[in-house]
């Protein structure tokens, strides 16, 4: 059985009684058992998935089915789900099961979603290759010698491998869009505040946003429509509901203005990536879209701004992991004093990338350096956001490659953090500005590696963004 079914296709197969949920989930389970040893996309699988599938079959039979009844969803392991471990890809939380679950999970559960398991990720979402996980590397299903991207690499791989039609990820600087691009699927990062962060383990709180990985934009919209809306448990969540969330039919590309950001198509961008994106833009123009090159000179500071603000917030967010109340506790010595216990626990529990960012974060916030780094970065962040805002006075959407480079080989860059950081050039400014963006497949390289195109929209134009994404996927070949 083909497991690469979108939600709509799966729903139709169920309605037409071609398959039952029970049969479908048995196939998924078999596929995961035989293939995920190699891919390693899941950290935890839901053991009760077949019981839940039978319940969904009953609901379909007696007509009590809900909006997303029985639809499978894999969840990145930094989002809390009842009765499932929340490891965040770290030894620190290897055995931690939260006594709460994320608001988005509550809402999806009420819509009938079945959670298939928790997916692998870079430790505490810090990384862009899924190689920093305590639970081993995840391989790219397209080519097992390559990384799936990250940090939501497990989620992207699970979708690309046909283990689940969709998955949740989290995106702080590109962690949903970049792995989607590397694995040849759709990744969507909503406007900051559209989805509640309650239950999402914080990395950079002012940048973090839960997002979706899926086979098409319609599924992203279906999932998001069930998750969005004000949450009293998250003071940064918004009550704004974007327009056009369901009505994809009315969307057309004719007359829409696209700004192509010049700085992301420079000599530093891989030539294959450039030509694939340029070809796609030509197609868009053929379908009536208007494309113009725009310049954002401030973009060159994006990576620097990000690698000050994100580690600063992270260093503070990760202080809670001290081995005293939950998670790993290194107390091998019975007479250990508290300070030593905390030091030993953190030394053992965190990997080197996490430690690197904690040290960076503490440095940029320390007295004497705060003004030179953090404060300056905050000011530059505002300038960058303003620039985006002003461009949206002229353009409906902005376009960049999702990644300026092709997927990395496994182990290729793990010891070169700076090279990895600069590869986030295209995705980072979107988080700094709180904007919504998607990555959709644009083509493949000579080696057969996927290349994704990023489309950025103004704040809370998420419905229009997903609509145009779906249009391009279907019509602009």
């Amino acid at each position, binding site marked *: 059985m083909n497991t690469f079914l979108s939600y709509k296709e799966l729903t139709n197969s169920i309605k037409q009684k071609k398959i039952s949920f029970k049969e479908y989930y048995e196939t998924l389970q078999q596929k995961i058992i035989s293939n995920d040893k190699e891919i390693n996309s899941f950290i935890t699988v839901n053991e009760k998935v077949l019981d839940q599938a039978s319940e969904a079959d009953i609901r379909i039979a007696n007509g009590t089915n809900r909006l997303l009844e029985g639809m499978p969803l894999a969840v990145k392991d930094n989002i809390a789900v009842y009765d499932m471990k929340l490891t965040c890809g770290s030894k620190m939380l290897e055995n931690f099961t*939260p006594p709460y679950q994320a608001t988005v999970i509550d809402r999806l559960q009420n819509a009938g979603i079945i959670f298939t398991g928790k997916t692998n990720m870079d430790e505490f979402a810090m990384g862009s290759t899924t190689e920093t996980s305590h639970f081993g590397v995840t391989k790219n299903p397209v080519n097992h010698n390559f990384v799936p991207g990250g940090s939501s690499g497990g989620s992207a791989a699970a979708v690309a491998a046909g283990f689940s039609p969709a998955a949740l990820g989290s995106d702080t600087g590109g962690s949903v869009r970049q792995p989607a691009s590397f694995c040849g699927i759709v990744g969507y990062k909503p406007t900051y505040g559209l989805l509640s962060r*309650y239950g999402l383990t914080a990395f950079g709180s002012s940048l973090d946003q839960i997002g979706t990985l899926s086979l098409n934009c319609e599924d992203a919209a279906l999932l998001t429509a069930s998750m969005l809306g004000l949450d009293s*448990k998250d003071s940064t969540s918004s009550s704004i509901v974007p327009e056009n969330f369901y009505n994809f039919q009315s969307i057309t590309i004719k007359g829409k203005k696209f700004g192509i950001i010049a700085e992301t198509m420079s000599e530093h961008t891989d030539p294959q990536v450039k030509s694939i994106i340029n070809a796609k833009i030509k197609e868009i123009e053929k379908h009536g879209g208007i494309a113009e090159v725009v310049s954002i000179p401030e973009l060159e500071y994006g990576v620097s701004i990000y690698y000050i603000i994100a580690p600063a917030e992270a*260093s*503070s967010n990760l*202080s*809670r992991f001290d081995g005293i109340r939950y998670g790993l506790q290194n107390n091998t010595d019975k007479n250990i004093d508290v300070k030593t216990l*905390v030091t030993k626990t953190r030394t053992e529990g965190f990997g080197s990338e996490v430690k690197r960012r904690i040290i960076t974060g503490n440095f940029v916030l320390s*007295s004497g350096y705060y003004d030179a780094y953090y404060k300056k970065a905050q000011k530059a962040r505002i300038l960058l956001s303003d620039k985006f805002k002003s461009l949206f006075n002229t353009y409906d959407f902005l376009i960049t490659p999702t990644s300026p480079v092709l997927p990395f080989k496994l182990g290729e860059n793990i010891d070169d953090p700076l090279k990895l950081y600069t590869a986030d050039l295209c995705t980072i400014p979107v988080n700094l500005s709180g904007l919504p963006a998607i990555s959709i497949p644009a083509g493949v390289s000579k080696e057969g590696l996927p290349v994704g195109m990023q489309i950025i929209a103004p704040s809370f134009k998420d419905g229009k963004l997903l609509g145009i994404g779906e249009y391009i996927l279907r019509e602009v070949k």
Partner: protein
Amino acid sequence: MNKPYPIIGLEVHVQLKTKTKAFCRCENKYGGIPNSRVCPVCMGMPGMLPVLNESVLNDAIVAGLAFGSQIASITKFDRKNYSYPDLPKGYQISQYDKPICSGGFIEIEDDNGTLKHINITRIHIEEDAGKLIHLEDGTNNSYVDYNRCGAPLLETVSEPDIRSSDEAVKYLKSLKEIFEYIEISDCNMEEGSLRCDANISMMIPLSDGTEINTPISEVKNINSFSNVKKAIEYEIIRQVEEYHKTKEVNNGKNKITRGFDDSKGITVFQRSKEGESDYRYFPEPDLPHLEITEELINKSKLRLPELPQNKRNRLENQYGITQYDATTLSADKKLSDYFEKCCKYTTNYKKVANFILTDICSILNTENISIIDFSVSAEDIAQLVNLLSDGTISSWIAKSVFEKMRLTNKNPLSIVEEESLLQLNNDDELDTIVIKVLSENQKSVEDYKNGKDNALKYLMGQVMKQSKGKANPVKTTEMLIERLK
């Protein structure tokens, strides 16, 4: 040459008595079984977010208004990062560069009795930490109780305007009085709902006419007003001695932290500035900036009660009681409220004030209770005072009626009627008793006539005894003197 004098600023933490904690919905209450009032948010579990309790914001605005502070139109929260086992998140949510209230003052009398303003720098909101407990259980283990963790605090920082230990205590008493008046904190130092840190340095005049300033000592967590006084007085002597030994002056970088040792009454060195942690303040990304509207401020103004200073003046003017009585009554909001309640049922204001401050307060003191736990109603006290003033009962009887009121909760008039304790005012009846007493006490009559004034008192006592205390004392005296002529 002038004497050395201290420069003192106080930082006072007051715990708000809101129903729930500052950023989660756990009950906010003192004590309880350790770790019984905690949740994933105040325990800092991954993915948990703070949500501001609106009552905390409202209370902070009321406090600012009470001290005459400027209320910020935009305020924000910041993270104060430090690592300690009683701080689950590894940071405290506080306010750094945009506190909710700035400015304001507290008026006190200086040591010469002149009125003086102690200026307030700022008042800001922050959350409390848990408590480390070291049990003598032989295990050498430390325990943590997180019940207090996340409780709302207001920190009031004064300018260094205080010039003596007495001024410091007056400032604190006045601050506590105001917080109690606006009913946002219990200000109970024993339970830690009012905590004080003192920044102390000395100005020492030199022989050439100049002055030097000694390095500042911050004395942390002083737990009573008398200890604040002791700590300051100890520092005054210590810093002058230290200066004569080392000649070290305040250079803006040599502030030290000291703790107060309760048992010895001294301050003890804890750490120098270099040893202090760098709090790495930055804006709290989980809480958006808060806009405080005129509307909200106006709403808070309605909550603002009459403040102690104003009440003192009004009680004196409106009821014609002495300044001393007005001051004593208004120092305790509940006591002065009780007084005013009594005044609704009587016009004998001075007598009511006197009765409350002597008879009632002595009971409150011996039983160590507050006026709100006192069983007799204000209306009954007023009636008792009325019965006393219009001569219905004697003061001697009044004491026993008051005693019975407390025991039975009956009103004074019914006690008087039931036990027929009405004062004997009838001339004929009184005269009969007087004649009887005079005839039975011939010796005293002789003594009186020989100029012994004590004899009259004795005869008076006999009349009281025969009348069971009901005889009107004034009338009785008049009649005795008349008969003895």
